[in-house]
């Protein structure tokens, strides 16, 4: 299959997400109660980069991934793929989007059809997009080789006959079979053993180079995100709290949540153990997030302005900038520390 043409040119971001919003109605809750899973998220992904998205449970990163592929319909917001608005008359259709963006799911018992041999699961994609059975089989064989599995040995196997690492390679193969330009990896290595995780990460790096891919890497594991990403986006309770180049985020985090997240990583040094947890309590429920800044209930720097005004992220479409949605970083906010921090 030929690669779909690069329509926008190198300067055009591959994907622009603007103000995406998705609320779910709470079943059996108070009328009008909604889970504000994704609440106004905007960012860009540039061609050939790896954008890492970190956050804890309930931050909305998995919902966001599904919004990007229109597996869930956004309530509001825009998606622009390589210059074409998605789902609109003059833009590209959702089907065409799915031809160019694919997703790798977390390894689980149900990520592959248990009744289909591996080669059929992989050949399904090309077949859906119009290839003949013979063509699809050939593509499946090729892509199995690309992910390091011998097609004759692994093609006829069923998912329950594979190890976790092998299943994930098959998941990756399935995503690559239709030759997408972008791959969304939703916790793709989280369920794997550490040594297997390392193998799969190496594979992902090689594939990205060889096939000119763009990655959106979602994970809760900061070390992995640091290793693989070029830029990082930090989510908390449905909103973006920080965005910037990976080195910046990890060495000079700007948002108190990011600071706490980084400080929660185990020290790997028994002589210098973490004595006090950087963050206490559990994240609040996304059904009824705190007013103003969502993080204020756990933030040691919270002041009145934080409860009244929601902080603004800033220039989210600039590739180089490092921005945080925090009143302390905004000189005009009225926060007492706004001046000294900047």
């Amino acid at each position: 299959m030929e690669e779909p043409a690069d329509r926008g040119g190198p300067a055009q971001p591959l994907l622009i997400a603007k103000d995406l919003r998705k609320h779910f109605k709470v079943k059996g809750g108070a009328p009008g109660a909604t889970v504000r899973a994704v609440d106004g998220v905007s960012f860009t992904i540039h061609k050939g980069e790896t954008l890492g998205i970190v956050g804890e449970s309930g931050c909305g990163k998995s919902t966001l991934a599904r919004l990007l592929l229109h597996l869930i319909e956004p309530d509001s917001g825009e998606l622009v793929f390589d210059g074409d608005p998605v789902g609109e008359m003059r833009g590209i259709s959702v089907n065409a989007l799915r031809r160019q963006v694919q997703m790798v799911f977390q390894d689980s018992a149900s990520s592959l059809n248990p009744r289909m041999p591996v080669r059929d699961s992989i050949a399904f994609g090309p077949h859906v997009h119009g290839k003949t059975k013979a063509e699809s089989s050939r593509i499946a064989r090729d892509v199995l080789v690309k992910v390091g599995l011998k097609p004759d040995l692994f093609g006829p196997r069923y998912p329950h006959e594979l190890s976790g690492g092998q299943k994930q390679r098959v998941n990756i193969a399935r995503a690559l079979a239709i030759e997408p330009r972008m791959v969304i990896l939703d916790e793709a290595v989280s369920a794997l053993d550490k040594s297997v995780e390392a193998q799969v990460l190496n594979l992902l790096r090689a594939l990205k180079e060889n096939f000119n891919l763009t990655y959106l890497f979602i994970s809760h594991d900061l070390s992995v995100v640091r290793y693989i990403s070029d830029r990082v986006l930090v989510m908390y309770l449905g909103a973006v709290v920080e965005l910037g180049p990976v080195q910046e985020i990890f060495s000079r985090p700007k948002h108190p949540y990011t600071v706490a997240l980084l400080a929660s990583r185990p020290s790997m040094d028994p002589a210098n153990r973490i004595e006090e947890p950087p963050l206490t309590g559990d994240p609040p429920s996304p059904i009824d997030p705190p007013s103003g800044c969502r993080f204020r209930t756990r933030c040691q720097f919270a002041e009145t302005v934080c409860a009244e005004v929601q902080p603004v992220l800033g220039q989210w479409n600039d590739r180089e900038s490092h921005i945080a949605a925090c009143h302390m970083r905004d000189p005009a906010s009225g926060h007492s520390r706004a001046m000294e921090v900047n």
Partner: protein
Amino acid sequence: MSAALVEVKDLNVRFVTRESTAHAVNGVTFSVQPGEVLCILGESGSGKSVTLRALMRLLPASKARISGSIKVDGQDVLALDQAGLSRLRGGLVSMIFQEPMTALDPVYTIGDQIVETILRHKGGSKAAARARALELLELVKIPSAAQRLDNYPHELSGGLRQRAMIAMALSCGPRLLLADEPTTALDATVQIQVLILLRKLQAELGMGTIFVTHDLGVASEIADRIAVMYAGRIIEEGPVADILANPLHPYTRGLMASTVHGQSRDRDIDAIPGSPPDLRQLPPGCAFAPRCAQASGECLAAPPEPRYPVPGRMARCVQIAAKIPEFA
């Protein structure tokens, strides 16, 4: 040296089905002192969870064949009858699990479950048991403990459920706490809270603890000693700082190198090639040899015997004595 709290000698566990026999644990020997935290580190299939469950005889009796010797506080666990086992579990030895949602009964409140455990082991009145339950919830730092007593498990968040499970495990003052990956399913910020809590409780109450995990970071935060397991055998053992600073066994070294922790972004991670062996068909020699860059003929012949290059450290590898000149 005072008597060890736990003494396991030559433990073997096989799972026998019609189709095959899986050798999950092969000749495991270790001991835990009172008040000490031993971390069993390993990946899936290493036998770490099976070892832990064997200590309380939680394995399915029809399929599991256990041999060897397990002594907890002097008692021979494998020789206990049902009544003795009932007294042991929850009383002398307690366990916390990875998934609190499945470990807690969803149709009873937290308070009821803790009270039940207390009444079972200590007897006494319900009111006294409930007071003790409240104390425990406060001990594990659950906010609004009095209201939480009457909450059902699904009404609590993941971190709180885990704390509730810890409270239940501690309710009868066990001398040995077994923890099977209790923080794996938790977010990072919650995980560190629970780890610090466990560390403090363990020190305060003086319990011996065996903590099973696959995460080196978790081990570094909580362990006094680490035992690394691979294919059902302990292949390295020693104080946590020593092992992290200077791993001896090639598998331990490989594990550390492949754990993503600040590696350079421009190079591949040094992954261990291949995958763990099938426990139904273990190779005759060292189980790690097929993946080991330093394997020699000797490695393939027979499983290596434990070596003690330095007091307190053990490694099952024929290559190490030759390679560590400072220990020679």
